[in-house]
């Protein structure tokens, strides 16, 4: 029963007593465990993956051994080494993680075609109507089979958490109960017991701000949260439909069966050498535009808007977006608009982060013919030809002249939430 689009119900909704058919699978400490799988010498040792292996590089993943020592996500390499000088610091290897993601997905597709990647390390599987359950097999047994196949086909060091529930929220909550190698079911029979062991911030989607909002209205535990009425959550706590979604979610009814479409393409760069020099920024901007453009074109979209944001060392930022009259397709189009935005900035301090994105996406096919088709003002065919050459001979074989000598700047990264490009 999907209640996500329904109007708030007037009656009290009970806990969902249906058979749990949603499975959530989560690869533990994804990047770190894949590195430990790849290098047996690093196994059972604290490993942290940092965006850059420099003192101020941020840790983006850490192994269970590192987490146990207090090396958590977001701290920098310097602090990680202060906590434990023996920590192994590695930089990300995106192709390796993408390969693991693909193999992971391939295994899951053997059981049902209703597999949805939530991020590079998380999958949701809906077994409703699935043939594998027709012969009376339990979902827990399928979970054990999946764990076994992952060990055989991705690596013997890889462990995953499996959670099973009647909705995505219960499945995700169950997956987090016994890390690093758990398999749990959350249903109407044990939901209250599970909530009793959790804090509000243990619930996916509740962080300190929502926690403060709930606390202010006398809700301090998940059980108190569960026992509140839909009207209370909708009108007093969240003051929107979100309150009703939480009311359903906490009771095991589906509120998250939503597929979000692609809204934008973009790229961000944290500057290794912070600068105020606009020429240097223009070069970086061009590379960001080229990467954004490549992804835009390979996904067969054109854009109708551009957004530039710049973060400064003094913790201030500048951001501006604008719709464009002409469609954005070629890298030059993106760069032209982005550079115009960059020219508007009065730089108050050294720039630490630069980000470009394009939005208002529409499919590139059918293509509106341009008045300038076939002339030198038609940059679509030039962009397509450059892409073909780069596809054949390697990335950045043909680049705008402004990007010369920038091969190792702005590295390949894995977007945590986005798996569209991988899949």
């Amino acid at each position, binding site marked *: 029963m999907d209640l996500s689009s329904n109007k708030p119900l007037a009656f009290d909704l009970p806990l969902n007593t249906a058979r749990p058919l949603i499975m959530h699978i989560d690869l533990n400490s994804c990047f770190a465990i894949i590195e430990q*799988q790849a290098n047996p010498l690093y196994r059972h040792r604290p490993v942290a993956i940092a965006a850059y292996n420099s003192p101020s590089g941020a840790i983006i993943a850490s192994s269970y051994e590192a987490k146990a020592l207090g090396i958590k996500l977001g701290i920098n390499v310097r602090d990680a080494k202060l906590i434990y000088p023996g920590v192994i610091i590695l930089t990300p290897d995106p192709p*390796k993680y993408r390969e693991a993601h693909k193999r992971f997905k391939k295994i899951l597709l053997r059981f049902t075609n209703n597999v949805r990647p939530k991020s590079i390390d998380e999958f949701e599987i809906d077994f409703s109507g699935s043939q594998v359950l027709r012969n009376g097999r339990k979902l827990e047994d399928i979970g054990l089979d999946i764990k076994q196949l992952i060990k055989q086909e991705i690596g013997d060091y890889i462990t995953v958490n499996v959670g099973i529930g009647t909705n995505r929220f219960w499945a995700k909550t169950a997956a987090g109960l016994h890390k690093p190698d758990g398999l749990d079911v959350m249903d109407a029979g044990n939901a209250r017991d599970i909530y009793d062991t959790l804090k509000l911030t243990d619930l996916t989607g509740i962080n300190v701000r929502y926690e403060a909002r709930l606390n202010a209205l006398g809700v301090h535990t998940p059980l108190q949260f569960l026992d509140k009425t839909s009207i209370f959550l909708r009108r007093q706590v969240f003051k929107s439909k979100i309150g009703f979604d939480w009311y359903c979610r906490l009771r095991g009814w589906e509120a998250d069966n939503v597929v979000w479409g692609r809204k934008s393409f973009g790229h961000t760069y944290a500057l290794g050498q912070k600068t105020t020099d606009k020429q240097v920024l223009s070069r970086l901007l061009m590379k960001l535009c080229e990467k954004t453009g490549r992804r835009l074109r390979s996904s067969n979209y054109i854009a109708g808007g551009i957004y530039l944001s710049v973060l400064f060392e003094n913790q201030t930022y500048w951001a501006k977006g604008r719709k464009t009259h002409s469609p954005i397709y070629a890298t030059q189009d993106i760069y032209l608009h982005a550079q115009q935005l960059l020219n508007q900035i009065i730089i108050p301090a050294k720039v630490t982060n630069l980000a470009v994105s394009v939005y208002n996406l529409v499919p590139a096919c059918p293509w509106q013919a341009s008045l300038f088709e076939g002339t030198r003002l038609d940059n679509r065919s030039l962009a397509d030809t450059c892409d073909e050459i780069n596809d054949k*001979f390697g990335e950045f*074989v043909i680049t705008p002249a402004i990007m010369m000598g920038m091969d190792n700047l702005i590295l390949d990264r894995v977007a945590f939430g986005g798996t569209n490009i991988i899949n």
Partner: protein
Amino acid sequence: MREIINEKISVVSIYSSKKRCFVPYSLSWQNRDYKIGKIGFRHQIKNGNTLHHIFECVDNQNTVWFRLNLDTKNLSWTLEVVSDGLVE
């Protein structure tokens, strides 16, 4: 300690039709032969049209880790990185 090498090296590899797998068996680097032990992970990368197979493996003594790159265009092996597992 991890060290970037990027040197062409000699590798003996085997293909098993039964297991349907291709793996490096031994390698020679700096006048020393290493027999490959465990393959930790294998993945592929594409550089333009050229497919590269990356094998990350340890020697059979479990003392040295290698990252090997097989270029499928010219069938050459490159030793990209080695590590003894120690912290820098």
